[in-house]
Protein backbone atom coordinates (compact mmCIF):
# COMPACT_ATOMS: atom_id res chain seq x y z
CA UNK A 1 0.00 0.00 0.00
CA UNK A 2 1.32 3.46 -0.97
CA UNK A 3 1.25 5.91 1.92
CA UNK A 4 2.09 9.63 1.79
CA UNK A 5 3.36 11.12 5.04
CA UNK A 6 3.06 14.92 5.21
CA UNK A 7 4.73 16.62 8.19
CA UNK A 8 7.32 19.39 8.44
CA UNK A 9 9.01 17.59 11.32
CA UNK A 10 11.38 14.80 10.31
CA UNK A 11 11.16 13.49 13.89
CA UNK A 12 7.39 13.03 13.57
CA UNK A 13 7.72 11.46 10.14
CA UNK A 14 10.22 8.96 11.56
CA UNK A 15 7.93 8.11 14.48
CA UNK A 16 4.96 7.60 12.15
CA UNK A 17 7.08 5.60 9.69
CA UNK A 18 8.07 3.24 12.52
CA UNK A 19 4.39 2.65 13.36
CA UNK A 20 3.56 2.06 9.68
CA UNK A 21 6.47 -0.35 9.38
CA UNK A 22 5.17 -2.33 12.37
CA UNK A 23 1.86 -2.60 10.51
CA UNK A 24 3.71 -3.92 7.45
CA UNK A 25 3.55 -0.72 5.39
CA UNK A 26 6.93 0.17 3.92
CA UNK A 27 5.96 1.91 0.65
CA UNK A 28 6.00 5.34 2.28
CA UNK A 29 6.77 8.67 0.59
CA UNK A 30 7.51 11.75 2.70
CA UNK A 31 6.53 15.37 2.06
CA UNK A 32 7.58 18.29 4.25
CA UNK A 33 4.55 20.58 3.70
CA UNK A 34 1.34 20.91 1.72
CA UNK A 35 3.06 22.26 -1.40
CA UNK A 36 5.57 19.42 -1.40
CA UNK A 37 2.70 16.93 -0.97
CA UNK A 38 0.76 18.44 -3.89
CA UNK A 39 3.79 18.11 -6.13
CA UNK A 40 4.45 14.48 -5.14
CA UNK A 41 0.98 12.98 -4.68
CA UNK A 42 -0.29 12.87 -8.29
CA UNK A 43 2.58 10.65 -9.47
CA UNK A 44 2.73 8.58 -6.27
CA UNK A 45 -1.04 7.94 -6.19
CA UNK A 46 -1.25 7.41 -2.42
CA UNK A 47 -3.80 4.96 -1.02
CA UNK A 48 -3.57 6.61 2.42
CA UNK A 49 -2.27 9.98 3.61
CA UNK A 50 -1.22 11.09 7.10
CA UNK A 51 -1.22 14.90 7.17
CA UNK A 52 -0.04 17.40 9.78
CA UNK A 53 -1.95 20.70 10.17
CA UNK A 54 0.57 23.42 11.02
CA UNK A 55 3.28 23.50 8.39
CA UNK A 56 5.16 26.27 6.54
CA UNK A 57 4.36 27.20 2.89
CA UNK A 58 1.04 25.35 2.81
CA UNK A 59 -0.75 24.03 5.89
CA UNK A 60 -2.41 20.65 6.05
CA UNK A 61 -5.98 21.96 5.93
CA UNK A 62 -5.32 23.89 2.70
CA UNK A 63 -3.64 20.81 1.25
CA UNK A 64 -6.63 18.59 2.09
CA UNK A 65 -9.11 21.09 0.59
CA UNK A 66 -7.02 21.36 -2.59
CA UNK A 67 -6.53 17.61 -2.91
CA UNK A 68 -10.21 16.90 -2.34
CA UNK A 69 -11.21 19.06 -5.33
CA UNK A 70 -10.19 16.20 -7.63
CA UNK A 71 -9.66 13.24 -5.30
CA UNK A 72 -12.65 12.29 -3.20
CA UNK A 73 -11.64 8.75 -2.27
CA UNK A 74 -8.08 8.81 -0.83
CA UNK A 75 -8.38 8.16 2.92
CA UNK A 76 -6.77 11.01 4.89
CA UNK A 77 -5.84 11.02 8.59
CA UNK A 78 -4.98 14.40 10.13
CA UNK A 79 -2.19 13.98 12.72
CA UNK A 80 -1.83 17.27 14.58
CA UNK A 81 -1.48 19.15 17.85
CA UNK A 82 -4.74 20.98 17.05
CA UNK A 83 -6.99 19.40 19.66
CA UNK A 84 -9.97 21.78 19.89
CA UNK A 85 -13.35 20.36 18.87
CA UNK A 86 -13.87 23.25 16.43
CA UNK A 87 -10.64 22.31 14.65
CA UNK A 88 -11.66 18.65 14.37
CA UNK A 89 -14.98 19.70 12.82
CA UNK A 90 -13.17 22.06 10.42
CA UNK A 91 -10.90 19.22 9.31
CA UNK A 92 -13.74 16.74 8.84
CA UNK A 93 -15.64 19.33 6.75
CA UNK A 94 -12.53 19.78 4.60
CA UNK A 95 -12.53 16.06 3.82
CA UNK A 96 -10.43 14.40 6.50
CA UNK A 97 -11.54 10.83 7.29
CA UNK A 98 -9.96 10.42 10.72
CA UNK A 99 -8.10 12.50 13.31
CA UNK A 100 -5.20 11.84 15.68
CA UNK A 101 -4.10 14.42 18.25
CA UNK A 102 -0.39 14.67 19.10
CA UNK A 103 0.96 13.38 21.42
CA UNK A 104 -0.15 9.85 20.55
CA UNK A 105 0.91 6.35 21.47
CA UNK A 106 1.96 3.95 18.70
CA UNK A 107 -1.09 1.83 19.59
CA UNK A 108 -3.50 4.72 19.07
CA UNK A 109 -2.01 5.65 15.69
CA UNK A 110 -2.09 1.98 14.61
CA UNK A 111 -5.72 1.71 15.64
CA UNK A 112 -6.72 4.85 13.70
CA UNK A 113 -4.85 3.71 10.58
CA UNK A 114 -6.48 0.30 10.66
CA UNK A 115 -10.02 1.62 11.24
CA UNK A 116 -9.57 4.24 8.49
CA UNK A 117 -8.41 1.63 5.98
CA UNK A 118 -11.20 -0.71 7.01
CA UNK A 119 -13.84 2.00 6.56
CA UNK A 120 -12.34 2.98 3.20
CA UNK A 121 -12.39 -0.66 2.09
CA UNK A 122 -16.03 -1.04 3.12
CA UNK A 123 -16.95 2.21 1.36
CA UNK A 124 -15.11 1.17 -1.82
CA UNK A 125 -16.84 -2.22 -1.84
CA UNK A 126 -20.23 -0.57 -1.36
CA UNK A 127 -19.55 1.87 -4.20
CA UNK A 128 -18.47 -1.01 -6.47
CA UNK A 129 -21.60 -3.01 -5.62
CA UNK A 130 -23.80 0.02 -6.28
CA UNK A 131 -22.26 0.60 -9.72
CA UNK A 132 -22.35 -3.09 -10.78
CA UNK A 133 -25.23 -4.11 -13.11
CA UNK A 134 -28.03 -5.96 -11.33
CA UNK A 135 -27.90 -9.76 -11.67
CA UNK A 136 -30.48 -11.30 -14.01
Amino acid sequence: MRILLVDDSKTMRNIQKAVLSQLGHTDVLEACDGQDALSKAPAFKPELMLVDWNMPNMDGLTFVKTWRQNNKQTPIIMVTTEAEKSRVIEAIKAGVNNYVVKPFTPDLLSQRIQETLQRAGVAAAAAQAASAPAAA
Partner: protein
Amino acid sequence: MDAIYIKPFIASISNVFSTMMQLPVTVKEPYVKPAEGPSSDVSGIIGMSGDVRGSVVLSFSNTTAENIVALFCGQKYGAGTPDFADAIGELVNMVSGGAKALFKDRKVSISCPSVVLGVNHILAKQSDVPTVVIPCATDCGIVNIEVSIKDARTPATPADAPATAQA
Protein backbone atom coordinates in the same frame (compact mmCIF):
# COMPACT_ATOMS: atom_id res chain seq x y z
CA MET B 1 -0.30 36.34 34.96
CA ASP B 2 -3.51 34.45 35.58
CA ALA B 3 -3.22 30.80 36.63
CA ILE B 4 -5.57 29.90 33.76
CA TYR B 5 -2.57 30.46 31.47
CA ILE B 6 -0.18 28.37 33.58
CA LYS B 7 -2.13 25.23 34.46
CA PRO B 8 -2.66 24.17 30.81
CA PHE B 9 1.11 24.08 30.25
CA ILE B 10 1.65 21.93 33.33
CA ALA B 11 -1.00 19.47 32.15
CA SER B 12 0.32 19.50 28.60
CA ILE B 13 4.01 18.89 29.31
CA SER B 14 3.11 16.01 31.64
CA ASN B 15 0.92 14.50 28.91
CA VAL B 16 3.49 14.96 26.12
CA PHE B 17 6.44 13.60 28.11
CA SER B 18 4.54 10.61 29.51
CA THR B 19 2.85 9.70 26.20
CA MET B 20 5.83 10.11 23.87
CA MET B 21 8.70 9.17 26.20
CA GLN B 22 7.21 7.50 29.29
CA LEU B 23 9.06 10.24 31.17
CA PRO B 24 7.36 11.44 34.38
CA VAL B 25 7.50 15.18 35.11
CA THR B 26 7.56 16.75 38.58
CA VAL B 27 6.49 20.38 38.41
CA LYS B 28 8.20 22.76 40.83
CA GLU B 29 6.93 26.14 42.02
CA PRO B 30 6.49 28.57 39.09
CA TYR B 31 8.13 32.00 39.42
CA VAL B 32 8.34 35.26 37.53
CA LYS B 33 11.56 35.46 35.55
CA PRO B 34 13.65 38.49 36.52
CA ALA B 35 14.72 40.88 33.75
CA GLU B 36 18.24 39.51 34.01
CA GLY B 37 16.86 36.01 34.33
CA PRO B 38 18.49 32.63 33.82
CA SER B 39 19.70 31.82 30.34
CA SER B 40 19.83 28.46 28.68
CA ASP B 41 21.67 26.47 26.02
CA VAL B 42 18.72 25.25 23.96
CA SER B 43 15.38 27.06 23.44
CA GLY B 44 12.36 25.84 21.49
CA ILE B 45 10.08 28.79 20.79
CA ILE B 46 6.43 29.03 19.67
CA GLY B 47 4.44 32.21 19.08
CA MET B 48 0.76 32.47 20.01
CA SER B 49 -1.75 34.78 18.35
CA GLY B 50 -5.48 35.36 18.39
CA ASP B 51 -7.29 35.75 21.71
CA VAL B 52 -3.98 35.11 23.50
CA ARG B 53 -0.71 36.68 22.33
CA GLY B 54 2.92 36.09 23.21
CA SER B 55 5.45 33.30 23.23
CA VAL B 56 6.18 29.99 24.88
CA VAL B 57 9.71 28.66 25.28
CA LEU B 58 10.97 25.26 26.35
CA SER B 59 14.49 25.80 27.63
CA PHE B 60 17.10 23.20 28.49
CA SER B 61 20.77 22.75 29.21
CA ASN B 62 22.61 20.97 26.37
CA THR B 63 22.90 17.74 28.38
CA THR B 64 19.22 17.65 29.35
CA ALA B 65 18.12 18.45 25.80
CA GLU B 66 20.35 15.71 24.35
CA ASN B 67 18.99 13.17 26.85
CA ILE B 68 15.37 14.09 26.10
CA VAL B 69 15.88 14.10 22.33
CA ALA B 70 17.49 10.64 22.58
CA LEU B 71 14.39 9.33 24.37
CA PHE B 72 12.00 11.07 21.99
CA CYS B 73 13.73 9.96 18.78
CA GLY B 74 15.04 6.59 19.93
CA GLN B 75 18.60 7.61 19.04
CA LYS B 76 21.13 10.17 20.19
CA TYR B 77 21.65 13.38 18.21
CA GLY B 78 24.29 15.97 19.07
CA ALA B 79 23.10 19.49 19.91
CA GLY B 80 23.44 21.57 16.77
CA THR B 81 22.49 18.88 14.28
CA PRO B 82 19.34 19.46 12.18
CA ASP B 83 17.61 16.38 13.61
CA PHE B 84 18.22 17.61 17.16
CA ALA B 85 16.68 21.02 16.40
CA ASP B 86 13.75 19.37 14.63
CA ALA B 87 12.99 17.23 17.69
CA ILE B 88 13.13 20.21 20.07
CA GLY B 89 10.80 22.13 17.75
CA GLU B 90 8.31 19.28 17.69
CA LEU B 91 8.34 19.00 21.49
CA VAL B 92 7.53 22.70 22.00
CA ASN B 93 4.91 22.39 19.26
CA MET B 94 3.16 19.54 21.07
CA VAL B 95 3.38 21.18 24.51
CA SER B 96 1.99 24.50 23.19
CA GLY B 97 -0.70 22.85 21.07
CA GLY B 98 -1.88 20.76 24.00
CA ALA B 99 -1.96 23.79 26.29
CA LYS B 100 -3.89 26.03 23.92
CA ALA B 101 -6.59 23.40 23.60
CA LEU B 102 -7.11 23.81 27.35
CA PHE B 103 -7.64 27.59 27.19
CA LYS B 104 -11.38 27.95 27.72
CA ASP B 105 -13.35 30.12 25.27
CA ARG B 106 -10.24 31.46 23.57
CA LYS B 107 -9.38 30.97 19.92
CA VAL B 108 -5.63 30.77 19.60
CA SER B 109 -3.27 29.99 16.73
CA ILE B 110 0.31 28.84 17.15
CA SER B 111 3.26 29.55 14.88
CA CYS B 112 5.69 27.03 13.46
CA PRO B 113 8.46 26.46 16.03
CA SER B 114 11.90 28.06 16.06
CA VAL B 115 14.92 26.68 17.89
CA VAL B 116 17.80 28.74 19.26
CA LEU B 117 21.08 27.06 20.22
CA GLY B 118 24.03 28.59 22.02
CA VAL B 119 25.56 28.27 25.45
CA ASN B 120 23.94 30.71 27.91
CA HIS B 121 21.99 32.59 25.24
CA ILE B 122 19.36 35.09 26.35
CA LEU B 123 16.02 35.60 24.61
CA ALA B 124 14.58 39.12 24.48
CA LYS B 125 10.84 39.17 25.15
CA GLN B 126 8.02 41.72 25.10
CA SER B 127 8.72 44.10 27.97
CA ASP B 128 5.04 44.58 28.87
CA VAL B 129 4.39 40.91 29.54
CA PRO B 130 5.95 39.10 32.50
CA THR B 131 7.55 35.73 31.84
CA VAL B 132 6.49 32.95 34.19
CA VAL B 133 8.96 30.09 34.46
CA ILE B 134 7.56 26.63 35.21
CA PRO B 135 10.46 24.36 36.26
CA CYS B 136 9.83 20.72 35.37
CA ALA B 137 12.10 18.07 36.88
CA THR B 138 12.61 14.85 34.93
CA ASP B 139 15.04 11.94 35.08
CA CYS B 140 16.80 13.60 32.12
CA GLY B 141 17.24 16.92 33.94
CA ILE B 142 15.31 20.17 34.39
CA VAL B 143 13.15 21.57 31.59
CA ASN B 144 11.84 25.12 32.01
CA ILE B 145 8.64 26.24 30.33
CA GLU B 146 8.77 30.03 29.95
CA VAL B 147 5.29 31.42 29.38
CA SER B 148 5.08 35.03 28.25
CA ILE B 149 1.53 35.58 27.05
CA LYS B 150 -1.37 37.94 27.63
CA ASP B 151 -5.09 38.08 26.94
CA ALA B 152 -5.55 39.91 23.63
CA ARG B 153 -9.32 39.90 23.39
CA THR B 154 -10.80 43.31 22.67
CA PRO B 155 -12.58 44.57 25.78
CA ALA B 156 -16.32 45.12 25.35
CA THR B 157 -17.13 48.75 24.55
CA PRO B 158 -20.03 50.57 26.27
CA ALA B 159 -21.90 50.35 22.95
CA ASP B 160 -21.74 46.55 23.19
CA ALA B 161 -23.24 46.49 26.67
CA PRO B 162 -26.93 45.68 26.99
CA ALA B 163 -29.13 48.74 27.36
CA THR B 164 -30.39 49.45 30.88
CA ALA B 165 -33.54 51.33 31.81
CA GLN B 166 -33.00 54.86 33.08
CA ALA B 167 -35.07 56.11 35.98
